[in-house]
């Protein structure tokens, strides 16, 4: 699969020497890596290695004590999550973070909020330009619903959906923003084989059809080897490997980390 991706471009995001600590816990220590345009990058590592923290730093959820992040050529130390959203970073969470009381459709529509510009007076009228805008985005949301094959649960409050479908809706909400960089925190955790296959297919399709750059965290090595162009490995907050799936698989440090050899 990987060899078809000759369209991988320049660096979209560069992480330089990022360190993050919570009190005495060092979640990340001087981590540096790059994410290139259009690639699928997998971040792997044992539990507590700092993978989720890394995504949280990228989308402005955590603020690192040290280091810098260069995104689309702009260097920054920190930003707010809504600012990250405004610059084209969307994500999903390890523990699903959907709006439980809202329908699938409304959840996906919230992904498009930043693209809606009519002021509240127009919204109060729900007419003319406001209605046109609403319909335009409804169509975009419906395309995502078709793409993810979730037509039948369009109007269902997501709190009532099974876990696997919720993960799918959360991906839909992230896609609705038409992001340049999509961060997925364990998109396949807790899924059965069939659901995992569907999810893999969606991720690959997103990459192929929209050219979205994707960074994902995943524990299932089979999946990682199958879909990613490049893999970075974190262990105790440090990056211990970075390369193609094959390179990483053969890396002794990685094997040690996974077999739990003492440090």
């Amino acid at each position, binding site marked *: 699969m990987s060899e078809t991706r000759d369209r991988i471009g320049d660096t979209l995001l560069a992480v330089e020497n990022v360190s993050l600590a919570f009190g005495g816990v060092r979640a990340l220590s001087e981590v540096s890596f790059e994410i290139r345009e259009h690639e699928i990058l997998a971040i792997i590592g044992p539990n507590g290695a700092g993978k989720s923290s890394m995504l949280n730093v990228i989308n402005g959820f955590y603020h690192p004590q040290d280091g810098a992040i260069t995104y689309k050529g702009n260097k920054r130390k920190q930003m707010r*999550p809504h600012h990250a959203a405004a610059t084209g970073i969307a994500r999903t969470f390890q523990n699903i973070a959907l709006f439980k009381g*809202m329908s699938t459709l409304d959840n996906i529509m919230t992904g498009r909020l930043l693209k809606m510009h009519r002021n509240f007076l127009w919204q109060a009228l729900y007419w003319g330009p406001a209605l046109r805008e609403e319909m335009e985005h409804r*169509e975009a949301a419906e395309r995502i619903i078709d793409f993810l094959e979730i037509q039948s649960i369009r109007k269902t409050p997501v709190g009532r959906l099974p876990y696997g479908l919720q993960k799918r809706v959360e991906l839909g909400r992230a896609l609705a923003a038409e992001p340049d960089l999509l961060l997925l925190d364990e998109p396949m955790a807790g899924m059965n084989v069939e659901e995992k296959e569907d999810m893999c297919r969606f991720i690959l399709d997103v990459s192929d059809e929209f050219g979205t750059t994707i960074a994902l965290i995943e524990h299932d090595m089979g999946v990682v080897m199958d879909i990613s162009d490049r893999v970075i490995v974190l262990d105790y907050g440090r990056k211990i490997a970075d390369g193609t799936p094959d390179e990483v698989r053969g890396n002794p440090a990685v094997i040690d980390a996974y077999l739990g050899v003492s440090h």
Partner: protein
Amino acid sequence: MLYREAGQFKTDYAADQAIFPILQDRIFLGLFLLLALVAVPLLANEYWLSTILIPFLVFSLAAIGLNLLTGYCGQLSLGTGGFMACGAFFAFKLATAFPDLHIAVVFLLAGVGTAGVGILFGIPSLRIKGFYLAVATLAAQFFLVWVFNKFPWWVNYSSSGVISAPAREIVPGFFITGTQASPVTKYVFLLVFVAILALVAKNLVRGKMGRSWMAIRDMDIAAEIVGIRPLHAKLSAFAISSFFIGIAGALWAFIYTGSVEALAFQIDRSFQVLFMIIIGGLGSILGSFLGAAFIVLLPIFLNNTMLAVDPSISTAIVSHIEFMIFGALIILFLIVEPHGLARLWQITKEKLRLWPFPY
């Protein structure tokens, strides 16, 4: 005619997003409005209009206002009475300072002023949540009522105990405030005014603004990652909620009671409106109406039945029993059906749609 959507194919998304996508619903609503607008004024007596329908409409508006903030945006507020007082006193100052200003404009401007106050008291919501926020809004409640009691400027230094709302016409010849106003004109005006405002509220909640409120309510951190600013979302909810509540307060003073007094907007008023949205349904415009109807009608109903059972029963006992029944109902709704009467109504409709087949 059966209640079905079969055969009604939606040709575009606009039709699908309509408030009442099913034809039968639209016919029902049309008939209902016709009944309310034509039959009720012709048939209802003064007692029904003045003690049931008029307060029901005013309360519905206040309940819609609180529901926007608490039901849709998840910000618990006990300041409803205080914000209603703002609306009432702002309207009084405006109406007396600018006697030529049309009364509907006075009401709307009183709402705008209250929205400003709402924003001010909404600022703590950026830091605190839930119970603590409720306590902060409680402080707003007491502070606002105190301000209106304390400074005679609010009632133009009038020395009389009762400050009457000035008489105003909605169209020449038809007074809606003051002693000349007939209950029928008041009712018709309120019905139209509240219906329009309810439509505005519905439009807001089904669009961008409503979605950002609900996102904040359901999970504020996730709301932030889709690009919603908590500051904007929460303060806009406070503003728009207060706008509706302020207008409700102005209508209360000018049309329902005819007198402007802070006493009418004490903390028990805040609780009353909160109970309406809990019983009617949090996060539902229809529920705001159902809850208001329920809480306006229940005491009357209980009163009448208890008097029928035992004509010698004292009013104190009646009101105590009322409290107990209210309390029990609220606990029941919170536990059994947190989405209130509106949800029960929806379930009934879903059943009806499938009737007579159980599945």
